[in-house]
């Protein structure tokens, strides 16, 4: 034990900022005081904002974009990182999940005058998905879910960590989200049909301080939604003009959205690849948000979330788009000519 402490101490003693860091920091702080402006971080994340084209669907919902801002510094092991989460105000998007729905319909207070409304939840084979509304952030700058702890009187207890949360609407102080918390099927199965105590842990951020907000509810899950892999693939597509290869690795269907994992290889290390989705009837689907990392040579990976495709469709057509940042800092997207990826939905 003492040896470990000593080794750890010795290892940490090698952790030092770059030689020039202190001087650069001093200059940065002096400038920040003069300009009264927040300086850029050294390896700050790229945050791309893409306005989504209105989906060619019957619903003529007005489109707007909600971005989950990044308030924390960059992941330096990633040479690039970007994320954006956006969605239209679309009532039709809120899919009916009656079969597995656990109604909650409860409003709780958080922090100082904050309010969260819990709509409903669904137990899935990958954890639990909860639809909630941050009606009022109160004194917090930001409120988001962290984890869910579920337990029964029989002593079963599981902690499910947040996988993502996706906004459904951008109405001010009335923002609804889908929050997904992960766990494996076997660990979830045992809660079906049992009275379950659930503690939802939200985090409230205020000026760099983080406060835990615990919400306790009880419910009885009667069934479990099975998250389906609708397609998986290992084949690369090469686009000669852009000198880029890409592949859609995995497509899974969750309660309220579809998750598409992909990879790409290119020489353009500063640009990010994403996809647009349509079906065989040329209907375009909404991209709800995406994340991507460029972290190592030949390992550029991304995840994009789409609304679920219509049940009567068989094909999913993914068209690649470049997300670029120009020298003057403006963000833009460029469609890539040529071959997309067409996938047939599996059962």
């Amino acid at each position, binding site marked *: 034990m003492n040896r470990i402490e000593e080794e750890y101490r010795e290892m940490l003693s090698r952790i030092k900022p770059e030689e020039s860091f202190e001087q650069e920091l001093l200059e940065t*702080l002096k400038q920040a005081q003069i300009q009264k402006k927040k300086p850029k971080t050294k390896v*700050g994340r790229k945050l791309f904002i893409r306005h989504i084209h209105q989906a060619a669907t019957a619903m003529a919902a007005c489109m707007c974009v909600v971005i989950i801002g990044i*308030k*924390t*510094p960059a*992941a*330096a092991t990633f040479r690039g990182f970007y994320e954006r989460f956006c969605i239209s105000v679309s009532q039709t998007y809120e899919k009916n999940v009656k079969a597995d729905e656990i109604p909650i319909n409860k409003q709780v207070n958080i922090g100082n005058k904050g309010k969260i409304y819990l709509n409903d939840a669904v137990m899935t084979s990958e954890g639990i998905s909860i639809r909630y509304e941050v009606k009022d952030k109160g004194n917090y700058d930001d409120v988001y879910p962290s984890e869910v702890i579920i337990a029964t009187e029989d002593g079963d207890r599981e902690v499910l960590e*947040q996988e993502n949360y996706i906004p459904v609407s951008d109405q001010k102080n009335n923002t609804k989200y889908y929050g997904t918390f992960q766990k494996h099927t076997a660990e979830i199965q045992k809660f079906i049909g049992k009275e379950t105590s659930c503690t939802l842990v939200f*985090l409230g951020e205020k000026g*760099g301080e983080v406060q835990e907000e615990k919400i306790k509810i009880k419910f009885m899950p009667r069934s479990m939604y099975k998250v389906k892999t609708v397609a998986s693939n290992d084949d690369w597509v090469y686009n000669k003009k852009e000198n880029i290869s890409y592949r859609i690795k995995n497509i899974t269907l969750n309660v309220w959205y579809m998750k598409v994992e992909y990879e790409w290889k290119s020489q353009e290390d500063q640009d990010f690849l994403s996809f647009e989705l349509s079906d065989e009837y040329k209907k375009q689907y909404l991209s709800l948000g995406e994340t991507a990392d460029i972290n190592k040579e030949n390992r550029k990976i991304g995840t994009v979330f789409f609304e679920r495709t219509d049940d009567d469709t068989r094909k999913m057509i993914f068209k690649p788009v470049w997300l670029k940042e120009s020298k003057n800092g403006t963000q833009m997207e460029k469609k890539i000519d040529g071959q997309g990826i067409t996938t047939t939905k599996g059962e």
Partner: protein
Amino acid sequence: MRKTKEYSDQELSRIISEYTHSLVRLAFTYTKSVPDAEDIVQEVMVRLITKKPYFENKTHEKAWMVRVTINTSINYVKAVKRHKNEPLDYDIPEIPKEEYYLVELIDQLSEKYRTVLYLYYFEGYAIKEIAQIMKKSESTITTWMARGRKKLKGLLLEREGEL
């Protein structure tokens, strides 16, 4: 009460030389990356000059710097985690790969245990100071330290058994 005047160049130099190294190390224990830890420290310093908090004494100032670094680092880890399914991938040039097990071992401790052990054993803070920083009672900190050490010992034995 807040500091009303801006920080002079001398004050900034003093703060930077006094805290940068230890705060970068502290942030590193969360981020596993020196450039990210530097970003966190810059964020903390910027918060200091913009919020201009009032400090009763040096201990209070130190406690504020450490606490804000911890909170900012936790936010960072949460933000990365909530958008990635995989654990944080790290590549630490300062540490040989064969010593990564140490980072992984310590990483298995929960945040609170890791932080108190780090502050006590590495930075040499007294229990009372850690209690102030973490806004917990001294007995809680003592308990966390004991539990953290016990857990670490268990993990170590487990690892040695596997080898």
